[in-house]
């Protein structure tokens, strides 16, 4: 009886999970997806709890209550902190997988070594290696994103790094193989493998810089999903395998999109150490950029008929979203068409800019993907670059010596005029000068993004009242 109830629940949850992701195809139906997900989860949890063999209700209730106590505040973080929160939840997912694998190993070991079949052993080893490396790797990523003091922000690169990392992983895998061959005899190796996986997670993330975070977070997402799949194999549970596969494929697709948007490969992100690329490229040629005042810029904006705003991580740092919203309102009211051009890797995780702009109540129809806007660029009167840098650097199109050569960019330089808001002329994360700032029709607006846009808004609303 219970068997068929559980199986029916699994079918129902699986279908609901698939619908949940299916409804994410459109912002209009997306919230339905969340409710389908919650329903699926509830069905799955209840169908597990009706098992009469479950007796330790005190442990279960404490863990669930604690989950709510920690989970609710985690869901209230400011949207600029969403990348950290996401990394942290990958860490929790990895931890859960790792611990379940560990518990299952010792349980079966105590019940009798014949329980540890080769299949189960392989699944357990895969689960704990993936789980624990995701755990520490994601914690490191979250720490870097949160700018925790004792975690280096800059990529840390040393000689033989890849050799050491892969060596550690290799040792863990060899240990795992020994355990598969003889689960009881080598049981002392099990904690060692856990330690190696934890260490590998840390070392994997140390060489990665902020701008690579979108890719790394997506990759860790895929690992967390695969760890859940491995858990499904260990526990012989189809629902876990399905949900893990859905999560894993989502992480995989997002990583691919991110890699393509940076014109890099997985191995290059993980083993390349992008951050340290020749800072020596600072060439002797000192070019000067033209500047413009807020008054002048406001006047030009008023005359424009189409304005494109290109946001980057700098916008989030300066918390300029709400000022941008005011600018958007004023210009729209004056009959100017304003859209936002979103580069896939702008921000610290996939889709980060969209969420920040949506929070500032920009209608989502105005948020345009890079590929869809580039062909319109020559018709655009004014482009405003807010806190973006490498994603608008024309060097990516033609300069073969540039480290970002080949990376798809938003063609800000093709618009009739460009305003770039920037604190100073310091180059971006890759240490590359941005040609865009020296282009003939580019004018710099120096200062904090929030303050500069505030000035523009003041000018525009002032002159608007004068009419």
């Amino acid at each position, binding site marked *: 009886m219970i068997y068929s109830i559980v*199986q029916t629940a699994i079918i129902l949850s*699986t279908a609901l999970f*698939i619908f*949940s992701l*299916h409804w*994410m195809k459109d912002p209009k139906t*997306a919230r339905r997806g969340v409710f389908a*997900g919650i329903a699926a989860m509830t069905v*799955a*949890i209840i169908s597990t709890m009706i098992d009469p063999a*479950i*007796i330790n209700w005190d*442990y*279960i209730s*404490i*863990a*669930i209550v604690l*989950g*709510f106590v920690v*989970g*609710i505040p*985690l*869901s209230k*973080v400011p949207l600029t902190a*969403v990348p950290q*929160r*996401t990394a942290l*939840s990958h860490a929790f*997912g990895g*931890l*859960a997988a790792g*611990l*379940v694998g560990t*518990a*299952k190993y010792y*349980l079966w070991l105590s019940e009798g070594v014949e329980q540890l079949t080769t299949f189960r052993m392989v699944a357990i080893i895969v689960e704990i290696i993936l789980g624990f490396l995701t755990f520490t790797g994601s914690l490191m990523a979250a720490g870097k994103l949160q700018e925790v003091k004792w975690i280096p922000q800059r990529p840390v690169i040393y000689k033989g790094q890849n050799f050491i990392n892969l060596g550690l992983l290799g040792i863990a895998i060899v240990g795992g193989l020994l355990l598969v061959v003889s689960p009881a005899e080598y049981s002392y190796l099990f904690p060692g493998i856990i330690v190696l996986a934890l260490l590998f997670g840390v070392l994997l993330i140390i060489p990665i810089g902020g701008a690579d975070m979108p890719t790394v*977070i997506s990759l860790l*997402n895929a690992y*967390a999903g695969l760890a859940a799949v491995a858990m499904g194999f260990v526990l*012989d*549970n*189809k629902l*876990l*395998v*399905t949900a893990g596969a*859905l*999560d894993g*494929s*989502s992480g995989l*697709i*997002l990583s691919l*999109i991110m890699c393509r948007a940076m014109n890099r490969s997985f191995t290059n992100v993980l083993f390349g150490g992008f951050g340290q690329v020749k800072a020596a490229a600072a060439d002797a040629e000192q070019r000067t950029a033209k500047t413009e005042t807020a008054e002048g810029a406001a006047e030009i904006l008023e005359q424009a008929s189409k304005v494109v705003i290109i946001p980057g991580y700098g916008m989030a740092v300066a918390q300029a979203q709400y000022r941008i919203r005011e600018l958007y309102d004023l210009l729209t009211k004056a009959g100017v068409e304003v859209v936002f051009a979103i580069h896939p890797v702008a921000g610290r995780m*996939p*889709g*980060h800019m*969209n*969420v920040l702009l*949506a929070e500032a*109540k920009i209608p989502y*129809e105005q948020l345009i993907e890079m590929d869809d806007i580039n062909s319109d660029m020559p018709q655009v009167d004014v482009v405003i670059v807010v806190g973006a840098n490498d994603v608008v650097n024309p060097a990516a199109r033609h300069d073969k010596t540039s480290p970002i050569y080949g990376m798809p960019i938003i063609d800000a330089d093709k618009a009739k005029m460009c305003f770039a808001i920037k604190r100073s002329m310091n180059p971006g994360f890759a240490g590359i000068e941005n040609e865009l700032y020296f282009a003939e029709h580019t004018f710099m607006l120096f200062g904090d993004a929030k303050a500069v846009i505030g000035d523009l808004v003041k000018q525009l609303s002032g002159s608007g009242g004068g009419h």
Partner: protein
Amino acid sequence: MTFKKIFYTISAVILTYGSAFAESKEVATPDYFGLFFVFMLASFIGLGVITRVSRLLHTPLMSLTNAISAIAVVGSIILTGHDYPDYINILGGIALFASMTNIVSGFMITDRMLKMFKSKETKKS
């Protein structure tokens, strides 16, 4: 649109039933091929569904799939609740706490973000 929906539903049913039947004969030894079968189909469905997700929603997508993969809660409940040695219950309990945190915060923050995505029309009304 409806075709796609039907396709997903049918695949989901085949996916779960196919292996459920295979397994019901022998509960003692898990049907490993059934599990691989499920994994294969689920991955294809996952790739199909996720590529259609709106690019606007990639951040909420990640928090949603995160909550979904916290289905590990099912395994954690079994390890915590059964009459196993204490240390197994405790390991399970920590895993249960971690998964529950992901479920609660994952679904809540996804909904919070999705509420913010307003179209022009809804704003006017």
